């Protein structure tokens, strides 16, 4: 008998119902591969949600650099030697596939963030936000719902998925992208958010944003993996808090939104 298809083995390792063809149990080779893949799944599921890596405190780098006797800033940065500039050097380097030459771009991006955060006043902001929400709503209307409604899972059902997009008002985040998937299961509604955005000093925080564009409820932080699954707070009127927003927050103890939105989108809920 032929060996189990490798892709099917991966699904068996995930415990997906109806995938086990009965072959692996009697085949040492397939069994060994299945054991290895299953051990990965076991580590991943040893916590109910993905583990979030923690950012070290900002001053740790300068202590390390001082003790090791290396410069606190990499060549090509212009600035104060803060670790957030080093982070940006690496981010630009990784994106371009050439870490050693990313310094100047990284440093200038930091400057861009600082300048642009002051932008955005009054009614302009409201219109841009509204436009972004309409674009997202159009994307949702374009067909995602049809596929989603057909889903039937005994315990967890995805009820909606939506792209999170940057706002024109915050050009420093123009390359950021995100996805939000809403699922309903035994523990109520959960939204899983993933963000494609550069590593920056601070952390990304996910918010429910009300229609008035002002009231917000924090859902929690995205870790360094830029992914998080959050319980939807019970009792919140989702027709009012109808949008998701991601901000970059500084480690300064502030519990309010840092003003600059990274990405935003309509909350994917069933209707």
């Amino acid at each position: 008998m032929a060996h189990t298809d490798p892709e099917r083995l991966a699904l068996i390792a995930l415990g997906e119902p109806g995938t086990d063809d009965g072959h692996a149990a009697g085949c040492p080779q397939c069994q060994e591969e299945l054991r290895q893949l299953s051990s990965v799944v076991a580590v991943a599921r040893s916590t109910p949600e993905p583990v979030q890596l923690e950012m070290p405190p900002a001053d740790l780098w300068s202590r390390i650099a001082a003790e090791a006797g290396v410069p606190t800033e990499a060549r090509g940065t212009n600035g104060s030697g803060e670790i957030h500039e080093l982070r940006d050097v690496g981010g630009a380097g990784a994106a371009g596939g050439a870490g050693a030459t990313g310094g100047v771009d990284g440093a200038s991006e930091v400057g861009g963030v600082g300048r642009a955060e002051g932008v955005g006043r009054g009614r302009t902001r409201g219109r841009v936000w509204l436009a972004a929400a309409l674009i997202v709503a159009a994307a949702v209307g374009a067909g995602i719902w049809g596929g989603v409604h057909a889903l039937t899972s005994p315990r967890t059902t995805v009820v909606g998925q939506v792209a999170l997009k940057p706002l024109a008002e915050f050009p420093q985040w123009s390359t950021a992208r995100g996805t939000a998937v809403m699922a309903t299961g035994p523990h109520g509604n959960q939204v899983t958010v993933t963000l494609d955005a550069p590593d920056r000093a601070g952390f990304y925080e996910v918010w429910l944003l009300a229609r008035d564009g002002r009231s917000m409820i924090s859902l929690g932080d995205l870790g360094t993996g830029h992914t998080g699954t959050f319980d939807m707070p019970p009792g919140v009127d989702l027709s009012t808090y109808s949008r998701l927003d991601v901000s970059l927050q500084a480690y300064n103890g502030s519990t309010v939104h840092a003003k600059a939105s990274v990405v935003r989108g309509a909350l994917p809920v069933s209707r």
Partner: protein
Amino acid sequence: MDSGADGGIAAAFRKGDPDSLARVYQRWGPLVYTLARRALGTPEDAEDLAQQVFVAAWRSRDTFDPERGALPAWLTAITRNKIADQLRARQREAARVQGATQEAVQETPTLAPDDLDQVVNRIVLADELGQLGEPQRMIIMLAFYTDLTHEQISATLGLPLGTVKSHIRRTLLRLRTRLEADGGTH
């Protein structure tokens, strides 16, 4: 994908490029710090330990042999050793205090070796998940943490079934490779 960039950092580090430690720290600082934080509990101990790890790595960079393993695996091994040292020191201190006072003292937080393996595995996995691009990351997140089948994931994300299946397999293999290199079990 990222192994190319990470490899460049490792090569510069091996050569002793003074800027390279910053890049090593920027890339793997959260990994080392989170390992220390979860194993030791207090932020202060975790910061001290992470500092020891990066300083020790820098001073012994000559002993890092890329032929024998990737840089994050080497850093993780240093971190594990220092965590184990710290936990042993805590146990000795607890025993000393207990011996001196002849009464049970409040339990010092310690971690059995098996538990440390589990902590390392979880955090190394989280680090590798963070390196995935899209749609690989979203696919594997849904596969791990929801009960969706691959067909449902395909429908949800609007991706072909074959793409979802091949991403699931390749991502599991990638995670397995990383866990074998850095993880708590070998």
